[in-house]
């Protein structure tokens, strides 16, 4: 044996392993689309840079960037709470109505116009647009709609918005071949908003499976885009030339997947993708906008970031303290420095500005609820608090010293938290910051085991639902689990009364009641609001045009209209 | 019969790991008996692997014996648990490698004084006693040495420190495991002389473990020759060297270089390259020019001959 002989096998082993490693990688790259793509493989297009303008005869491809985990695109079953990526369904499936967060309105999709309430306001009838067709060519029928709603009834876990919950849907039935009647057990005027949360699926495909466990790898929808394939980097959708609301102008929609928003932002800047559904690194937005081809669409949303205050804890049960905290938040700074102007200032009355005229909009700019530390200090001193040696206000020997929980794992939010705690320090309120995991944060909220807690509260697309988080039926004393989102443990008899009244009142009356509730919330400061997070959608206008800015520009209905320049 | 200072009876040691998978045993020492009286020097001679160091370690209780017994002044090390604790004041050991046996991190004063404190033979400052001990082993002026660290000393000085440390506990028996083999010969002689002098002064018994027949003859009153874990020959030093009985002893003496030997002396040597020690019969039969059938099959017992001599060989049964 000699060294010379030894060397060769070593080298060749190295080369073999190398090749093996990389080939195994690419074989798996190939396999999912072979398995999942029902369509035949397209002509061998050269690996052109995605952003190049389309040449003649080549498909027009729109590259949409999205931060989505690789595992989240393994399943295209829109019923499941997990393992899927909800934004995707908007392109492939239709719901009866689409909630347009830009205008706060419902847009009919599979429904043919607005539905009709019965006289007792307990039945809502929706007419169906039967021009719709499933991607596999089969006709769309009322049965599909009935199936899609009734499956939620039989699978509690799928009914994430509790449509079949207490006092809500009692029965869904067909009214002839082109209408569906939603019967309620109690008046529930918000029902149309809730209808936006259910995607209609083809009964023929789903009834063969258990909807709660169906791993849908080749989704069939009625939507503007057809599923073609999925690989490690993108979901590829073809245009639905037969779409009943008009065929898209682009031939293919690539949903390019990024794991982090930084890379996505860079891809946008470089033109690898033309738009995103929203998750970009907020601080990068101003830089993006330095390039005139980049635009940003911002609209308020349903998620309100706040310093949530536990109203049952000592000192925090004192309205003066809560108010002082509310006044110590410089919302403008938070929005500017923390969120780079990509969010909307929140309404001290809590209702998101997305709900248009139901919102008491004067509260937003009312200096009485704006940043004013002098006023904070005045309030505290008026309430009998005195500064101690450490410069912290105290009463009866008990200083205003609170724990301040926030989620770990969110650098921007933590930065904002640091800003807030330093402001609180300025007005003589001491905080001990505790960072916890997200589930732990939820647990603390539910059990009321916290004092101050920075987090967002997300509500369904319904003003009633948004305000009902202040209803006392949504809370429970500290130590017991809150049945609803009233984590603040806020109780106000008037608010309860007004909300109960609104739940069955007509539209005008409701608006009026909502405004009353909002004013009371602003006044009592059960929590200190920061900002509304909705959409902040960057998009490029250098290669494509025709975005509909009345909708989220990268939503299915807008992208349908987009065409290449 | 009066109780000897040290009585070793059928001592045996089996090393082995009994793992899940198989037994891996090695018989390091087998059936060794001897006795030692005050003022006596016994040399245990053998090649590496003969088991001589194992005996030294069993005598000082560094490793336990697996069979047989060691008795100090009639007390059994095996049965008398209390003896174990105070054994250090009874028997002490001098190690082969003075470079390693002194903790490089401590001063000479600490090293020599420490045993006194550990064995509660001294209270308070050990310095005067340490100075006295250093003086005794010829490290003079002792003041110069007491605060030094081992690395500041030469090999011979280190071995003297080792001896001083050992003397501190006033043991009755000292086991010296190749005390000079790591030292230059000119220094080694001094150490041997020191040990002999101390032996007479302090009325010690000395066990010298060595592979060097010359040193054994120089130091010892009696010599015990070890081979493959067994004692093969025992007797007064002059006799064992002068008129060896066992073929192995003869081989050993013949192989030891000595320019003054009788040049005409020749010997038939059987050198079974790499062959393992036989498991049956006499352990030496594969190298023995006189081996007969009995040697190959029958194990040998010790034969006691006149004049205190003992030999383990079929030739003398």
């Amino acid at each position: 044996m000699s060294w010379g002989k030894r060397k060769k096998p070593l080298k060749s082993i190295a080369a073999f392993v190398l090749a093996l490693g990389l080939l195994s990688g690419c074989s798996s790259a190939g396999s999912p689309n072979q398995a999942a793509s029902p369509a035949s493989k397209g002509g061998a297009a050269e690996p052109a840079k995605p952003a190049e303008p389309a040449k003649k005869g080549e498909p027009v491809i729109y590259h949409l960037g999205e931060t989505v985990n690789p595992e989240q695109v393994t399943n295209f079953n829109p019923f499941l709470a997990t393992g899927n990526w909800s934004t995707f369904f908007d392109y492939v499936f239709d719901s009866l109505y689409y909630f347009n967060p830009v205008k706060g309105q419902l847009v009919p999709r599979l429904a043919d116009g607005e539905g009709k309430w019965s006289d007792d306001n307990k039945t809502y009838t929706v007419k169906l647009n039967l021009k719709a067709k499933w991607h596999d060519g089969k006709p769309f029928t009322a049965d599909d709609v009935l199936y899609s709603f009734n499956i939620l009834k039989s699978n509690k876990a799928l009914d994430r918005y509790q449509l079949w919950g207490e006092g809500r849907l009692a029965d869904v039935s067909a009214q002839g071949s082109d209408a569906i009647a939603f019967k309620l057990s109690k008046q529930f005027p918000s029902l149309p908003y809730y209808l936006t949360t259910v995607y209609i699926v083809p009964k023929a495909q789903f009834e063969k499976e258990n909807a709660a466990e169906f791993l849908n790898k080749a989704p069939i929808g009625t939507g503007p885009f057809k599923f073609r394939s999925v690989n490690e980097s993108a979901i590829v959708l073809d245009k639905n030339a037969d779409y009943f609301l008009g065929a898209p102008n682009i031939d293919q929609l690539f949903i390019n997947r990024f794991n982090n928003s930084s890379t996505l932002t860079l891809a946008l800047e470089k033109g690898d993708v033309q738009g995103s559904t929203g998750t970009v690194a907020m601080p990068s937005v101003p830089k993006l906008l330095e390039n005139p081809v980049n635009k940003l669409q911002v609209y308020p949303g349903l998620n309100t970031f706040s310093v949530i205050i536990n109203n049952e804890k000592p000192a925090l049960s004192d309205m003066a303290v809560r108010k002082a905290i509310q006044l110590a938040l410089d919302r403008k700074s938070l929005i500017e420095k923390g969120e780079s102007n990509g969010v909307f200032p929140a309404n001290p009355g809590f209702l998101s500005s997305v709900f248009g005229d139901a919102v008491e909009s004067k509260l937003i700019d009312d200096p009485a609820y704006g940043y004013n530390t002098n006023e904070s200090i005045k309030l505290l001193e008026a309430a009998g608090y005195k500064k101690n040696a450490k410069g912290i206000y105290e009463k009866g020997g008990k200083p205003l010293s609170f724990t301040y929980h926030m989620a770990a794992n969110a650098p921007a939010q933590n930065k904002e938290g640091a800003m807030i705690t330093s402001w609180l320090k300025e007005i003589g309120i001491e905080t001990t910051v505790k960072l916890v995991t997200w589930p732990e944060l939820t647990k603390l909220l539910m059990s009321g085991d916290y004092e101050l807690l920075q987090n967002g509260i997300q509500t369904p697309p319904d003003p009633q639902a948004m305000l009902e988080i202040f209803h006392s039926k949504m809370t429970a004393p500290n130590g017991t689990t809150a049945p609803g989102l009233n984590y603040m443990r806020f109780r106000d008899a008037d608010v309860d009364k007004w909300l109960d009244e609104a739940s069955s009142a007509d539209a005008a009356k409701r608006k009026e009641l909502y405004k009353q509730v909002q004013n009371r919330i602003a006044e009592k400061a059960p929590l200190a609001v920061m900002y509304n997070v909705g959409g902040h959608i960057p998009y490029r206008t250098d290669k494509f045009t025709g975005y509909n800015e009345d909708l989220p520009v990268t939503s299915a209905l807008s992208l349908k209209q987009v065409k290449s320049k | 019969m009066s109780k000897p200072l040290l009585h070793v009876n059928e001592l045996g040691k089996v090393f082995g790991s009994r793992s899940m998978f198989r037994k891996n045993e090695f018989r390091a020492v087998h059936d060794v008996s001897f006795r030692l009286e005050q003022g006596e020097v016994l040399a245990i001679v053998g090649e590496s692997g003969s088991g001589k160091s194992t005996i030294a370690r069993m005598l000082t209780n560094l490793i336990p014996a697996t069979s047989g017994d060691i008795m100090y002044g009639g007390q059994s090390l095996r049965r008398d648990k209390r003896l174990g604790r105070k054994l250090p004041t009874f028997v002490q050991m001098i190690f082969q490698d003075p470079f390693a046996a002194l903790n490089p991190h401590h001063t000479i004063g600490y090293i020599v004084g420490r045993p006194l404190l550990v064995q509660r033979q001294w209270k308070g400052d050990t310095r005067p006693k340490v100075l006295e001990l250093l003086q005794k082993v010829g490290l003079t002026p002792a003041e110069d040495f007491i605060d030094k660290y081992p690395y500041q000393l030469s090999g011979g000085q280190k071995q003297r420190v080792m001896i001083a440390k050992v003397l501190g506990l006033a043991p009755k028996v000292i086991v010296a495991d190749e005390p000079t083999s790591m030292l230059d010969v000119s220094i080694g002689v001094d150490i041997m002389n020191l040990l002999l002098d101390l032996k007479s002064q302090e009325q010690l018994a000395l066990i010298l473990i060595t592979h060097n027949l010359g040193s054994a003859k120089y130091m010892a009153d009696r010599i015990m020759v070890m081979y493959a874990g067994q004692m093969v020959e025992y007797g007064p030093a002059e006799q064992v060297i002068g008129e060896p009985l066992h073929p192995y002893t003869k081989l050993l003496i013949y192989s030891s270089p000595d320019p003054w030997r009788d040049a005409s002396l020749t010997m038939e040597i059987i050198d079974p390259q790499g062959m393992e020690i036989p498991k049956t019969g006499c352990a030496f039969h594969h190298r023995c020019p006189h081996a007969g059938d009995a040697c190959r099959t029958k194990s040998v017992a010790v034969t006691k001959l006149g004049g205190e001599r003992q030999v383990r060989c079929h030739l003398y049964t």
Partner: protein
Amino acid sequence: MSKLLQVQNLSIEYASPRGVVKAVDNVSFSIGKGEIFGLAGESGCGKSTTAFGICRLLRPPARLAGGSVVLDGIELTELPDEQFDKLRWSKMSIVLQSAMNNLNPVLKIRSQLMDAIVAHEPDAGKEAAKRAEQLMRLVDLPADRLDSYPHELSGGMRQRVVIAMAMAMKPSLVIMDEPTTALDVVVQNGIIRKILELQEQFGFSILFITHDLPLMLEMCDRIGIMYAGRLVEIASRQEMKSGPRHPYTQGLLHSFPPLYGPKRRLEGIPGHPPDLIRPPGGCRFHPRCARAMTQCSSREPAVLADERGQVACHLYNEEGLSVEQASAARE
């Protein structure tokens, strides 16, 4: 006897953090063809360093500081590396201490033996394999041991392999640095007899280095004694046996307890070897010498060479008489 190796004023030193160590200082000796020359001394006296200096295997920071080494008429110290590499093993081979470390643990004996041959005769090929077997037979090892790894052999066998390897190119000089030190006496005896047998057969010269003076007196033709980097005495075996001249040699010889003769007290040599960074002035042995005189500490003794050998000690004047004898004769 013609000279095979001539070492003249060899000096080797190395830098240590505390200063320059003169490990070998002005050492001169020669070895005749077919002669076994022993170099003896205690640890640190520079005997191994001398050997490494001769075959240019000094490891940094040790370096040759001066002197010349002539092997078979070739001046070795100035030879370029490539030429010296060709000369290695073919003219001069070396046997190191018999530790496990002598052989490459991951190569079979066969390839290590063949390496030595192929390095000098790249075309040897099959013939090299045959020669490897012959070499094994030479040292009484079965040829099938060629396929063993070093760890599968006993210490004595390994040393035999190393000796076999040293014979591979039939060198004219074999340097043996403590070849048997770590071995048991019986094994040592076997190997020494094998070395003598091979030497008789092939007639090479041996530079034999050991601290074991009795062993040396049994096998070497001439013996040089080193102390603290200097060669203090050279004498034939007979002269050595009958009575060395240098007080150090005398002391050393009397430090080995003899096997024969009546028991008598040995004296050894008091003190310990000097620190070679700051060696004592004059004769380096004088601090330990029982017969030291005033001049010993101030003047380096000249080397006296005569028919009995050579000695560097103030006790002896030009005539080879001791100073006492000389002064006694004068009076």
